[in-house]
């Protein structure tokens, strides 16, 4: 598939100058620049999120839920600078969620379904940032801020942070079901139906997190093989798929209200380009 095949017909050729020059050109001439901006913000956000949580702060994969107070203090000491610097950056980039959520809602706004779907999705996913990111980061930052604090208090912050992170499950569950239902009802073919079913699969993995409320050890604890590792694999696949599908949606977007045009291969686009001249020749 050629991504340029559909766009080529609606856009004049972009100049081949410097990156800055091309960005300015697209800002002035490309009617999809806001969509592309939101999409790139989404890509940057998820990549930064991964680097900051897994490599800088090292709070993911999550540490064991069974650690005692002295081990938790040691855990904070080992990551002291990473937690403070990493979460300072996380708070700076939190705003990236806005264009990300806007694009997700836009995809549903483009469907032939009620406006209730994008609006509820927007509210749900904006809400998920509070427990899933902000509360977790605040609690862990507070824990790292004063290492001489009472170990029992630091232990409390540790539990609070990771339970808050898992607390997003219900929000993501409903969000995935809203998206699934919108895709199944949509007649504009914005997304393939299999993605609706992948949403269902993702929603079911959110349910699987619930045993983390009961267990401190084993596969059902917050760091367990079932509660975290398998869910994370599904989440990475799900995220990669929807970022890819959103890109295809932007390429296909025609700003109409009917079905989105399908992407065409370069051969089909070339064939379409030849057709008018053939018919004109026949007319003559």
């Amino acid at each position, binding site marked *: 598939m050629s991504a340029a095949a559909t766009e080529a017909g609606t856009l004049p050729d972009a100049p081949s100058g410097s990156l800055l020059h091309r960005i300015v050109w697209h800002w002035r001439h490309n009617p999809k620049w806001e969509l592309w901006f939101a999409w790139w913000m989404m890509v940057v956000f998820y990549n930064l999120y991964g680097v900051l949580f897994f490599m800088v702060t090292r709070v993911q994969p999550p540490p064991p839920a069974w650690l005692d107070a002295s081990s938790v203090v040691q855990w904070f000491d080992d990551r002291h600078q990473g937690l403070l610097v990493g979460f300072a950056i996380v708070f700076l980039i939190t705003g990236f969620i806005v264009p990300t959520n806007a694009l997700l809602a836009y995809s549903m706004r483009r469907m032939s379904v009620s406006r209730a779907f994008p609006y509820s999705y927007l509210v749900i996913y904006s809400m998920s940032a509070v427990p899933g990111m902000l509360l977790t980061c605040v609690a862990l930052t507070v824990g790292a801020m004063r290492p001489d604090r009472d170990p029992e208090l630091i232990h409390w912050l540790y539990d609070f942070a990771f339970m808050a992170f898992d607390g997003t499950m219900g929000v993501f569950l409903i969000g995935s079901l809203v998206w699934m239902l919108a895709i199944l009802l949509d007649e504009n073919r914005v997304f*393939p*139906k*299999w993605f*609706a*079913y*992948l949403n*269902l*699969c993702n929603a*079911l*993995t959110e*349910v*699987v997190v619930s*045993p983390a409320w*009961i*267990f401190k050890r*084993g*596969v*059902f604890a917050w760091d367990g*093989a*079932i509660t975290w590792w*398998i869910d994370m*694999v*599904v989440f990475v696949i799900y995220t990669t798929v929807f970022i890819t599908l959103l890109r295809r949606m932007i390429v296909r977007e025609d700003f109409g209200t009917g079905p989105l045009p399908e992407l065409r291969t370069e051969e089909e686009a070339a064939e379409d380009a030849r057709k008018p001249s053939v018919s004109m020749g026949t007319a003559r």
Partner: protein
Amino acid sequence: MTNVASDGSRPRGGDVQSLADEPAEATGYVPGQPDMWAFVLFEAFLFTGYFVVYMVCRIQNPELYLQSQAQLDLRIGTFNTFVLLTSSWSVARCVQSAREGEFRSALTNVFLTILFGFVFLVSKLLEWAHEIGKGFGFSSNEFFSFYYFLTAIHFLHLLIGFIVLGVVVHQLWSPARRSQELVETGATYWHTIDFLWVIIFALLYVMR
């Protein structure tokens, strides 16, 4: 294989009656929406992950698993399996009847499937109540954690299955709808529930 129109397009609502008169062609199409088969694949991968984790835990503590397994009633598990296999048979008959344009029979079979699903649901609830009554809860030991987890996540699929069968009934009810593709898609989902249960049954009740 599902019916395919002469131009290769898949049947839509209202096309079923005329398509039902044509002999089924041997084509490369899968029954129902191919998208649902993608779901079957996702679920198969996901449950494979759960089963592998279960097996690894079991290998580390075989005595505990064997002793706990003995607390389960194999007859209930066998009954559950028999009921679900029967429900798969009736949903297959529903698809066949719809293909032949016998929609009254198709509806009867889908209602039978719902009934068998309901019997499974009630027997599973009774079994859980029975095990809890004996003192074996979700956090009693590792085996029972897996037992409740696997049967509960399967139970959730079953509940979604009732919604899916509701869509099938909705399609078959009115001559204005009757999309063979949706009927087959629903049946594919229901077979997935059955398929997953058979493996869960083998792992939890049978394997020693």
